[in-house]
């Protein structure tokens, strides 16, 4: 078989159904093979960054490995933002890049770039394949590495002569890498220690991170919280890992978290962090983070533990298996529910006081549409789907993302896909394309800002071509709103470079692509326009003109303690 045939055969063996890509000189051989392979659907994007994000959105929404195929040089470099996005959020993606023939590598050949060098710090691992006969082994390893342990993007660089060369096809039954052996099972003694700490604490908080979603531990978290009567807060990546409508949910914590989540964490005496990495947007000023709390930290990646905060009981292991183990201990000890309830009674009373004092709030008054109102209306109209998991909401980055995180109630895992770690504007729409490809029956909505939607607007054509009925809701304030908010609060309203002088007419733009364009400029138009969009079976872009200077609150200024919140 030729190298290209081996690559396509490997994709089939890995169960790949869809690839997002863009052809070019260095990958023509693979495209030639795909031409003959109807069982793998290739989605032709309009920019390689879109392909990387779409593969990422496919992976986030389905739990499968997303695949992306691009050519050498600029094709490869255009995926870098997408790769870094997936890396920061631990998303399993395999990126195939073409490369100039091996004998030209290092010669500054046409469309040559050292993409393994460029992506070394933002991939979980990468490979430059030098011989056709190495392909099966490397491709198998690439998928294995991407999906196991702490998942992440893996890049495979494929020189043209490796694609054209011939070798015997073989498929290794299993992958054994002596230098890569992720630990899944937690140390039992550590779990017992964690249990004893739960038994002796009085003010606990469970902190759910993205690891709960990637390991599929949402049911275990729920069972744990309910049995022990624990309050639960989530990071941005953890939203949907525990039901947002659950009475024990405190919502999101951190920079734009709820008042009560931040107060609970700050006053807690025990934090059980599961698959969260204590990012600076979560901790605020580290020295002031949960000063009285002991911390139990479950994570599959040992580097996440003890990196930003001191941990008292580290548990290295898969979130799901670790929680299963903890639940086993809980069931063995069989402490009556009444005792747990009694133990945390005062704590819950305090939390209820905080909840009443500053709930998430906004006022929809006057002629301006409040963005929070839009998100709440969207939630009302899609509540059934949210609760049954029949929806995927993607966001861009900035205010639109935070309002969504605050006001949409995510009950099911993988219903929110958002660029948490890297904060990539332009992520949401191509990610929605990936999500819709992976979930043809679900409703897919991208909540965008007028800034970020323009960063990958070209993918409108891709979505139209594939007939994807994605709903894009633009919260249009004519500003790069989050930066404007910082300038308002911390730079004496010096609005430097945040106001677009020209914003396209999004309705006409939608129509130019053949999509449906809708607009709302007054509060009473929001509901009918959203309804019309949700009923549409086409790609629909909704331009909602919101209050231009609305901010996201609460807000913890960067580098400050999480108790120093600016409330509305």
């Amino acid at each position, binding site marked *: 078989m030729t190298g290209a045939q081996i690559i396509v055969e490997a994709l089939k063996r890995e169960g790949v159904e869809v690839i997002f890509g863009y052809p070019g000189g260095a990958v023509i051989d693979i495209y030639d093979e795909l031409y003959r392979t109807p069982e793998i659907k290739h989605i032709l994007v309009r920019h390689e960054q879109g392909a990387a994000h779409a593969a990422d959105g496919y992976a986030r929404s389905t739990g499968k490995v997303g695949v992306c195929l691009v050519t050498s040089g600029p094709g490869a470099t255009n995926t870098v933002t997408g790769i870094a996005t997936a890396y920061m959020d631990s998303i399993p993606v395999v990126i195939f890049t073409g490369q100039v023939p091996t004998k030209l590598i290092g010669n500054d050949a046409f469309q040559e770039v050292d993409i*393994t*060098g460029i992506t*070394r*710090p933002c991939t*979980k*691992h*990468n490979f*430059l394949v030098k011989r056709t006969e190495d392909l099966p082994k490397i491709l198998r390893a690439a998928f294995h*590495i991407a999906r196991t342990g702490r998942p992440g993007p893996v890049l495979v660089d494929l020189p043209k002569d490796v694609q054209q060369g011939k070798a015997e096809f073989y498929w290794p039954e299993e992958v054994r*890498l*002596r*230098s*890569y052996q992720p630990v899944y099972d937690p140390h039992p003694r550590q779990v017992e220690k964690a249990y004893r700490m739960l038994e002796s604490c009085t003010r606990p908080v469970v902190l759910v991170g993205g690891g709960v979603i990637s390991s599929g531990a949402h049911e275990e978290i729920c069972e744990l919280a309910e049995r022990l009567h624990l309050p639960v807060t989530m990071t941005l990546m953890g939203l949907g890992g525990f039901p947002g409508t659950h009475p024990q949910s405190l919502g999101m914590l951190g920079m734009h978290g709820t008042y009560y989540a931040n107060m609970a964490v700050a006053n807690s005496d025990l934090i059980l962090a599961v698959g969260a990495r204590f990012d600076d947007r979560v901790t605020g000023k580290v020295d002031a983070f949960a000063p009285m709390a002991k911390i139990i930290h479950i994570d599959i*990646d*040992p*580097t996440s533990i*003890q*990196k930003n905060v001191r941990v008292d009981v580290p548990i290295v292991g898969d979130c799901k298996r670790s929680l299963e183990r903890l639940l086993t201990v809980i069931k063995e000890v069989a402490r009556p529910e009444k005792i747990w309830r009694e133990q945390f009674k005062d704590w819950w009373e305090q939390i209820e006081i905080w909840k009443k004092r500053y709930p998430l709030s906004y006022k929809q008054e006057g002629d301006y549409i409040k963005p929070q109102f839009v998100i709440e209306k969207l939630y009302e109209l899609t509540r059934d789907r949210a609760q049954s998991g029949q929806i995927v909401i993607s966001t861009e980055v900035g205010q639109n993302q935070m309002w969504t995180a605050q006001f949409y109630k995510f009950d099911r895992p993988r219903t929110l896909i958002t660029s948490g770690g890297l904060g990539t504007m332009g992520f949401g729409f191509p990610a929605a394309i990936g999500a819709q490809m992976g979930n043809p029956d679900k409703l897919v909505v991208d909540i965008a800002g007028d800034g970020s939607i323009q960063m990958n607007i070209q993918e409108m054509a891709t979505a139209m071509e594939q007939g994807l009925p994605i709903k894009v809701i633009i919260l249009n304030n004519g500003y790069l709103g989050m930066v404007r908010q910082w300038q308002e609060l911390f730079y004496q309203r010096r609005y430097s470079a945040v106001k677009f002088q020209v914003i396209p007419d999004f309705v006409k733009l939608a129509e130019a692509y053949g999509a449906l364009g809708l607009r709302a400029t007054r509060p009473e138009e929001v509901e009918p326009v959203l309804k019309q969009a949700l009923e549409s079976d086409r790609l629909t872009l909704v331009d909602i003109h919101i209050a231009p200077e609305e901010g996201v609150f609460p807000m913890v200024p960067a580098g400050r303690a999480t108790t120093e919140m600016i409330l509305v």
Partner: protein
Amino acid sequence: MSERKHTLSVLVENTPGALARIAGLFSGRGFNIDSLCVAETLDPTLSHLTLVTSGDDLIIEQIIKQLRRLIDVYKVVDVTEEGEFVEREMALIKVRAEKETRAEVLRMCDIFRCKVVDVSPRTYTIEVTGPQSKLQAVIELLKPIGIKEIVRTGLIAMRREKKGT
């Protein structure tokens, strides 16, 4: 917390890019490399790397974990924490040796058991091997005479075997 030097012994897959991954990890995350020494092991598919770094306990813990997280890294041992170990470094020192200092340089070599590996009318090139403290002593003593050039290998280290039966 106090900063301390740590000597790490790292076994990595002998693949292209493995060293770049390690070097990139240190530069990308702002860790220090004081010295780095790499060569093949008995098993040609593995390379051994001795790395001297410094930082407080938390930083060193992070460095070790980050190294272990690299797919190509097979094993990391913090030699400094593993009890007794021997460390050696070699230096080649080209020192000025004019008429009046030639004898003195040779005497110094004798005392420190250095070897003269190259001779010219005006210089000696000396090979010195030992723990870093010894290299440092030799360098300090030769400085007044006039060191023209110096090349050091960086430290290598090995855990001492337990004594007794």
